[in-house]
């Protein structure tokens, strides 16, 4: 087995990890993830920093700041970047609260096929369509799968 580095733990590191607040962490995470998404969109469209600056009517140094992961973007700036790069940075579509999408994988090939039957006198009820199944929140699905 390949040799790997020895792990290092200490109170100093633990103290470091307890610095700051969850709110600040969440803000930094958003800024860095937006920067990464913009950078990826630029790469996908083969647009360099200078070209993006020209298209946005900005100085290249401003784009550098955006991509540094430290910029506090305004909604207007994000809207403009979305338009120029054709990337979605703001999720503004209306969606009812609590509507979740679940992905269900059904393994159709089993080395030992088993027939799962409900207790005598009862039946299973499944969502009628594939779309229903995909969009059915887990709790409802469980309810529908429950014995009729």
């Amino acid at each position: 087995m390949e040799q790997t580095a020895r792990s290092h733990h200490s109170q100093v590191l633990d103290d470091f990890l307890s610095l700051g607040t969850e709110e600040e962490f969440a803000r930094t995470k958003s800024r860095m993830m937006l920067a990464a998404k913009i950078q990826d969109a630029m790469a996908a469209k083969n647009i360099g920093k200078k070209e993006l600056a020209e298209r946005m009517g900005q100085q290249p140094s401003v784009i550098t700041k955006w991509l540094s992961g430290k910029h506090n973007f305004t909604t207007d700036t994000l809207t403009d970047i979305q338009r120029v790069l054709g990337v979605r940075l703001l999720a503004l579509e209306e969606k009812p609260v609590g509507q979740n999408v679940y992905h269900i994988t059904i393994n159709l090939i089993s080395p030992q096929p088993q027939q799962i039957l409900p207790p005598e006198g009862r039946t299973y009820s499944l969502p009628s369509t594939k779309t229903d199944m995909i969009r059915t929140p887990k709790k409802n699905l469980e309810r529908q799968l429950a014995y009729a």
Partner: protein
Amino acid sequence: MKFEIKKLDALCGRKVSVYSVTLENDNHTLFERFILENAPTFPGELADLRYQIKVMAENTGIRDRFFEKPEGKLGQDIWALYDEKGKLRLYCMQIGHVVIILGGGGPKATRTLQEDPKLKLENNLLRMVSDAITQRMIEKEIRLPLDSNELTGNLIFDDDDPMEVE
């Protein structure tokens, strides 16, 4: 110069592995020395560096643009991570955008690195570490396997060469 590369499990994530360096006869890593030196004066700045390291490790991976431009000779992947206000510099070595080795650093008080003895010392120290690691990677004594973010091989450096930090 004798040193060892150690993995900081608590800072690692699914995208990036985080390491630091212990020098001979020192229980603390260079990164821990950096924390101890700066925690009393720059707790907020240190917290900001913590957020950045954790987000890179878990979410974004290493992006060059999150760092200051490389300092040192061409080919040495020494970069500086800095806080939002630009007060602190933390020198790091990147390997393949999936491994980061944290060194030391300090507050940036001067315009250039050369004007600051402390930052110059920390930068040169990590450059020496970088040179030694790069040499072992060329000799395939240290490897970064494909699709992995974990260094493998001999990560203990026992060379008796005296340390020549400028």
